């Protein structure tokens, strides 16, 4: 029997507990909570004084790139990045090469995750074979093999008929269809948000309407089919408006938002930090490809609408859309650059900005990256209930640190936050009661 005691931490277990207390782990499971004064025999005692102890983070949207794009990320490097960022479970997107279309593909990623250890890896399967949008994948077979949801992420399911029947299929297995909502005809090859910055820089804009239109379509299809819809990384005020209506109508619709859409705006494309000079114009134009992401960073109004929606509980989950790329994919012109931000290792520090700004509370933030995402995808994690797997993060909410992308565990060093100072750092991550990451450790 292995017994671990985490001492003196502020334990935040969403909807259950927020107090300074000691947490006891026995054989990889949460055994209970005891007062600091209680004594006992433990194999290891971890001092968490001044730190927060919470369920390990759960990411509904991670690109691990394996199989096929191992030069960008592997399951092994991806889970290292995950636990360094406080994540104990990551849901791996199926836009690999080949795409995850069959039970065998799902089993491959599950096996790669088991082999890598560290964090739990749970794949999604595709909605359509090869993400080509032409014929449905056998989602029921993949669900039985362990797929948690289905998505053609990276691309939308463009054909409305295909989306309709994919939602119908979801009734067979209850797993959500996750759509990347973007009408390609409206997005029209855009590379950033359409607005004053795209006008200024002469970059092709993606209208917010491209997202709003497809969110509206998918919500109506969910209404008509009764299917289970999850909206990936929504980014616009319009999507929030549509989501509110869908939830009010009682539809089986959930949604996630990313840390970057909550904290950054289109101004970051001009230059890191989006600084402006006295005339309100950008001080130094840089065409920062690291801020190129899809959906694009939007306007401040959109950002504020997303934050408000997280605060009121309309948004079900904060998900990273961790999208690692090689340096060559970003050291090029803005048009040529790949979309995506490497996000696992900066999630906590990014979200703490919103806590510092007084817009979200720390318990809110924790809930949206633990309990709520687990409920969204039906995962049995995200809480510190007695008997639950001891997937735990210990974090120092006050620690200030400077992002050095070159030291990321992820192969993807692509973040516009490189060189920026963040507050809030992961001290230790435990999965099944085993230490998977320790700050300053090996």
């Amino acid at each position: 029997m292995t017994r671990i005691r985490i001492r003196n931490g502020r334990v935040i277990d969403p909807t259950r507990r927020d107090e300074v207390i000691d947490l006891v782990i026995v054989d990889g499971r949460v055994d209970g909570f005891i007062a600091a004064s209680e004594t006992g025999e433990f194999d290891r005692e971890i001092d968490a004084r001044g730190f927060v102890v919470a369920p390990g983070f759960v990411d509904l949207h991670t690109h691990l790139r394996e199989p096929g794009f191992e030069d960008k990320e592997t399951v092994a490097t991806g889970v290292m990045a995950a636990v360094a960022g406080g994540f104990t479970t990551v849901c791996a997107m199926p836009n690999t090469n080949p795409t995850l279309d069959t039970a065998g593909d799902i089993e491959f990623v599950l096996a790669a995750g088991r082999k890598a250890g560290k964090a739990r890896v749970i794949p999604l399967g595709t909605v359509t074979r090869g993400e080509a949008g032409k014929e449905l994948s056998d989602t029921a077979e993949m669900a039985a093999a362990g797929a948690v949801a289905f998505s053609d992420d990276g691309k939308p399911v463009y054909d409305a008929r295909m989306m309709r029947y994919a939602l119908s299929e979801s009734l067979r297995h209850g797993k959500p269809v996750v759509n990347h909502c973007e009408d390609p005809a409206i997005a029209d090859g855009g590379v950033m948000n359409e607005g004053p910055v795209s006008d200024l820089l002469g970059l092709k804009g993606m209208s917010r309407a491209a997202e709003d239109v497809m969110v509206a379509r998918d919500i109506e299809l969910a209404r008509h089919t009764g299917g289970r819809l999850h909206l990936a990384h929504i980014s616009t005020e319009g999507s929030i408006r549509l989501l509110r209506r869908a939830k009010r109508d009682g539809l089986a619709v959930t949604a996630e938002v990313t840390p970057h859409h909550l904290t950054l705006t289109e101004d970051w494309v001009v230059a890191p930090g989006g600084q402006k000079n006295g005339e309100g114009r950008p001080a130094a134009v840089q065409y920062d490809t690291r801020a190129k992401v899809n959906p694009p960073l939007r306007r401040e109004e959109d950002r504020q609408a997303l934050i408000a929606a997280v605060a009121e509980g309309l948004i079900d989950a904060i998900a990273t859309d961790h999208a690692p790329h090689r340096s060559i994919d970003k050291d090029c012109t803005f048009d040529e650059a790949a979309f995506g931000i490497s996000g696992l290792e900066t999630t906590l520090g990014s979200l703490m900005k919103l806590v510092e700004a007084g817009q979200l509370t720390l318990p809110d933030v924790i809930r949206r990256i633990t309990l709520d995402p687990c409920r969204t995808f039906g995962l049995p994690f995200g809480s510190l209930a007695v008997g639950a797997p001891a997937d735990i993060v210990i974090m120092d909410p006050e620690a200030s640190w400077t992002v050095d992308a070159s030291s990321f565990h992820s192969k993807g060093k692509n973040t516009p936050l490189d060189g920026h100072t963040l507050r809030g750092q992961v001290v230790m991550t435990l999965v099944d009661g085993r230490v998977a990451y320790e700050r300053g450790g090996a």
Partner: protein
Amino acid sequence: MLKTSAAVNGHVTTPSAVERHPWTGRRHVLDLDDFSRDEIEEVLRTADRMKDVLARPIRRVPSLRGRTIVNLFYEASTRTRVSFELAAKNLGADVVNIAASGSSVEKGETLLDTARTLRGLGADIMVLRHPDSGAPYTVARHTDLSVVNAGDGLHAHPTQALLDAYTIRERIGRIEGLRVLIVGDILHSRVARSNAWCLARLGADVTFCGPPALLPPTSVSDHDRAPWPARVDLHLDHAVEGVDVIMPLRVQLERQDGSRLASLRSYARDYGINRARLARAASHAIVMHPGPMNEGVEIDADVAHGDRSVVQQQVTNGVAVRMAVLYLLTAAVRAAAVTDAEEAQKPAAKSGNATNGRKA
């Protein structure tokens, strides 16, 4: 890799400069949005002197002898490329012209690798034309070449705007207070963007006019946030009233797929510059065009070749203005190098200054 913002944009401040030349600290000409009025006027003054040089029997001065200028063009171009080539040669520089077709670009070499290779071969200044907006910024950020933007995507064409300003001043005598109307496909026009910065900085009142789908989206639907110093008017017959300068833009036929524009006929009817419309402008009004022209679409042939047209003058002035830009940029870079060398010789007096993004 140079990462500081100072190195990326045009300017690096030199605190020790006593008599600051307007171009002091400039390393690149990427767009005119970071140009002061003084800097632009310095170009116009210098271009006057270059015009004098061009009027001599031997149209050459040795100012750039020993310097290597590379013209790297990823898009087709006649006037801009030849104009830059002649400008550099007139100043005594060694000039290398590279077109993307026929070079290693066809083997998949990236822009940055090509730029580093050319730097390794001894290029001092790169004149870059590229279909991607911001491409010159990418080269400026990742190499230590001096970069002159010869047109990047939809973004900027600073030397075109400078030669336009020069031509307006030459014909009308001033720019301050003039009303300038730029007509057509503003959305896809790097010329319109750079002209707006340049002419507004010189005190002109700039208006963009075109069909809504060919205007930058913020100009139409979110006007308070439109980033340029330009008004917007959707109706040419109204906008043209009393203006001093009319600049129809080329309708980029290669970009028209039928979704933004019903037909060229529809365009010409409502946005073409013809005699009747010209008559509504000021009596001294001039007509400019960045070329190449689609006669009968954005401009009628009789206007294009009429006595108000300054199209030929624009082309001719292009050489003098580009000579001025290359001359001023070389002088600024050279001065910065001298300053750096002097700084380097001072024993650790200002060690904190050594890392401000300038190269030694």
